[in-house]
């Protein structure tokens, strides 16, 4: 039985395998793009279906398991993120992918992430989760063994954690599909509220929550578990990283939502509330807040363009976690909105990075500079992405960030409020570093023949940039879909306006007035005398003549003062935390392996198969 969900999930996989088998230049690219376009097309089509019926269902029985898939509003949004950004990333790979190996695993990981989003039972969820992890691990392995090892270790750690949690739930509930689990746990919470014995004890609940938090936190790159992300994100094909960071990390975020959906009521009952937020959510939010700060500060101190955006990615995921953690309808909508916008602008950023690396072959800031003149189209895209990430109205980054601010601060959470304020400033900071080092300043002479972006990358960037602008000017487009999740008007207003009752934001109005302001400024500008272009050597050098032999741009250690200010904290987080946790995790993984072999037989069998496959390929 072929259902559209089936096609959505498996089309990329099929295309990937085909591309790998055929391995003919030109054809494999076409197959890959088609493979990524099919899910997108079907997802767009599903929008029509979803407006008439609440969900699309599909189930398949395989090897004694019954896998359930369900498409409804909330995971449609996530799947759309995957579809759009995945498509853009695959388009970018047309230019940057080196061989069919990359096509295979990139498309498999797209399948994996779509499967995670669409799965409606924990078994399927876990399997696709592993498929996704495995495929992305293979992508990293190809480029950097060490980075992939770190990623592998932490991912396995997370997978174990999830497996145990699923095991506990299965042992208690006896079912793996979401609906049953949700119902049982809800009833359990009710039972607890009436004072009768509960199915899960308090400690079990803490354990399950903790394990899921670790499992999803690893994937999302949450603060103490983020260490794999910078290396893994940077040491792979950068077009793929657009998907890796834009979509795969969203699987972790989606997992956090799954915690809410499945365990939310039960956890809320068990631990109570902190202010407006559930206590368990507050933990997520606090960790998210720390993630914003740590990721942002570290991003500002990076010397590698890919690392900068990897850390930036971590930082932005922190926002989403804060929103999810606060746990009100508004904040969860804000978080999902930010997930959308993060996927859009971060996907765009990584495509830009891919273009830069593709064209210059350099990754470090110190080798770049003055590329704006040489790559105007890419720079225009970067400009949109920068404004969007920095949260500048009227782009999508501001709309989602604004929603998050309002949602968090409205719930009287000053500490979280301070954290996200800091996060927005640090966003400015590392973006300026990127802008200055790559686009502006003195251009090293060896970059003099750099060309602009190749067509597929340009198209991919164009799609994402356009969406950045459209969703920024008309934030209501997204908000309308988000409102459908809760079935009520959490975010009021029209398609141009977001109205929360205690705050309003109108994208169109801001655009109009910004244009008015720009026109006024431009009139003043054009009334003045004509301008004459001068080279970079004809600038203020305290009166001294300079030539191009001198370095006129701060290429390295741009934020050295910040580094010095934070020297105390950096010592802690870099030297001890980074390595000790790494070592600790290695040890723990070792112990855990002995421990987990006692687990559920079926899960173990599945797991063994995957490990064997990994090991087999590793040997290759």
């Amino acid at each position: 039985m072929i259902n559209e969900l089936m096609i959505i999930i498996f089309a990329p996989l099929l295309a990937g395998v085909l591309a790998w088998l055929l391995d003919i230049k030109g054809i494999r690219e076409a197959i890959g793009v088609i493979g990524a376009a099919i899910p997108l097309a079907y997802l767009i089509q599903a929008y029509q279906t979803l407006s008439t019926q609440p969900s699309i269902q599909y189930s398949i029985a395989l090897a004694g398991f019954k896998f359930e898939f369900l498409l409804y509003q909330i995971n449609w949004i996530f799947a759309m993120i995957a579809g759009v950004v995945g498509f853009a990333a695959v388009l970018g790979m047309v230019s940057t992918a080196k061989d069919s190996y990359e096509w295979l695993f990139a498309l498999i990981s797209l399948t994996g992430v779509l499967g995670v989003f669409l799965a409606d039972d924990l078994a399927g969820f876990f399997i696709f989760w592993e498929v996704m992890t495995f495929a992305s691990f293979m992508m990293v392995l190809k480029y950097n063994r060490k980075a992939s090892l770190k990623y592998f270790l932490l991912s396995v750690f997370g997978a174990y954690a999830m497996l145990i949690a699923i095991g506990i739930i299965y042992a208690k509930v006896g079912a793996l599909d979401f609906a049953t689990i949700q119902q049982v746990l809800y009833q359990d919470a009710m039972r607890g509220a009436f004072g009768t014995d509960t199915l899960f004890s308090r400690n079990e609940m803490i354990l399950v929550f903790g394990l899921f938090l670790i499992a999803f936190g690893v994937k999302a790159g949450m603060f103490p578990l983020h260490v794999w992300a910078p290396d893994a994100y940077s040491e792979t094909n950068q077009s793929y990283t657009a998907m890796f960071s834009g979509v795969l990390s969203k699987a972790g975020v989606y997992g956090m939502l799954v915690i809410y959906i499945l365990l939310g009521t039960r956890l809320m009952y068990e631990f109570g509330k902190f202010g407006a937020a559930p206590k368990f959510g507050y933990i997520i939010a606090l960790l998210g807040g720390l993630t914003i700060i740590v990721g942002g500060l570290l991003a500002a101190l990076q010397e590698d363009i890919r690392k900068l955006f990897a850390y930036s990615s971590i930082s932005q995921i922190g926002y989403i976690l804060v929103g999810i953690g606060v746990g009100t309808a508004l904040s969860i909508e804000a978080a999902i909105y930010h997930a959308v916008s993060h996927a859009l602008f971060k996907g765009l950023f990584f495509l830009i990075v891919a273009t830069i690396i593709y064209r210059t072959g350099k990754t470090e800031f110190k080798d770049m500079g003055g590329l704006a003149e040489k790559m105007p189209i890419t720079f225009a895209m970067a400009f949109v992405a920068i404004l969007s990430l920095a949260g500048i109205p009227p782009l999508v980054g501001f709309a989602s960030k604004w929603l998050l601010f309002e949602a968090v601060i409205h719930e009287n959470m000053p500490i979280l409020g301070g954290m996200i304020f800091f996060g927005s400033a640090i966003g400015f900071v590392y973006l300026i570093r990127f802008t200055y080092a790559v686009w502006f300043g003195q251009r090293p002479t060896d970059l003099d023949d750099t060309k602009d972006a190749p067509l597929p990358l340009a198209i991919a960037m164009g799609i994402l940039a356009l969406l950045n602008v459209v969703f920024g000017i008309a934030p209501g487009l997204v908000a309308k879909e988000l409102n459908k999740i809760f079935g009520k008007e959490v975010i009021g207003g029209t398609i141009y306006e977001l109205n929360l009752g205690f705050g309003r934001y109108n994208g169109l109005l801001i655009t109009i007035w910004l244009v008015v302001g720009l026109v006024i400024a431009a009139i003043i500008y054009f009334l003045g005398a004509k301008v004459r272009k001068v080279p970079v050597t004809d600038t203020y050098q305290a009166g001294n003549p300079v030539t191009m032999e001198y370095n006129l741009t701060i290429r390295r250690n741009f934020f050295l003062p910040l580094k010095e200010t934070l020297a105390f904290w950096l010592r802690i987080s870099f030297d001890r935390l980074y390595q000790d946790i790494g070592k600790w995790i290695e040890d723990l993984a070792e112990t855990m392996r002995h421990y987990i072999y006692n687990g559920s037989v079926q899960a173990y069998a599945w797991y063994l198969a995957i490990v064997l496959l990994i090991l087999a390929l590793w040997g290759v």
Partner: protein
Amino acid sequence: MVSQSELIKEARENGMELLPLDKDTYELFFGPQHMATENFSIILKMDGHRVVKAIANPGFLHRGFEKLAELRPWYTNIALLLRICVPEPDVPEAIYSMAVDELMGWEVPERAHWIRTTVLEMARVSAYLFWIMGLSFKLGVYTAGQWAAAYRERLMALFEELTGARVYHIYTIPGGVRRDIPGDKWLRQLKDTVEYIKSKLPDFDHLVFENYITFKRMEGIGVMDKKFALAEGVTGPNLRATGVPYDVRRMDPYLLYPELDFEVPVLKEGDALARALIRRYELEQDLYILEQLLEMGPPSGPYKVQDPRLKNLPRFKVPAGDAFAHVESTKGDFGAYVVSDGGNKPYRVQIRGPSIAHGIRVLEQLLVGARIADVPVILMSLDNCPPDIDR
């Protein structure tokens, strides 16, 4: 319209290789067209905001004084040499005059001694006020700077009345001074001015020298120790800030200084703050010396030597020989070495400005590792005076 790529193309056509030096660092030209280093240039190799390497580039004020002095008669040189130290032009006048006095074997009259000492001390006070102005402009507390410049104007007016000029006095000449004190009114005015400036010192303390932020900015910046300072020929307040009580006025007394009572402040930290505080304290001491001088009153007698040879100045000859004289300026040990071959012009005049030691090697070494914000502070705390170096 010349774009960067065209420049590069042109360079390549001419066979020039255009590759930046070292991409880890960048070059920053600090001066001469910069508010912190007037007429002086430092080429900084920077990493982030830290200095990795500094090269001092002097010579923007070089006029070849030492050569010019060999071509001008003995007395005319006074009008030339005082331009070596602009903030306190009386110092080069005094050392040159003292050296010539020694060559001539003249006993300078008491009154001339008194006037020379007073003028030197006034110059010291005005130079210290000028330095306070510079320091506070570089630190950003413009108010103190403006006030210091305003108080300095009072001394300028007194100088003008005494010598006829505001800046270049051409007053101390071999054998005495060029003209007598205008009268008692001038002395009274000087007394008033000294008292006035003394009463204003607490303002500077509040704004600059006792300010929390000043301490933060200057503490532990540009530290030198005693051994380093001596090896590098550091003199004056900069040396005293490292714990060496070397003051020419005490160690090699000249003029009236043996008879005067003053302290030589010494601190041992050797950082920018210590140097600044030493100067602040010396300003107080200088005012105290001026008070003593005024209490003493100018001795009666002639204000310059009575010598028949002075009738015809262009033909004035100095016996062959050489002499070294030095005084304590606000910057340090300011010396002159004068050689005569018996002619009507000096055979060789060498002026030793203290900044030639402070401004080149010491500066280059103190700047390494400093933040860009510390560069003006270190420069100012060394009280580097470019004309000293360039001559």
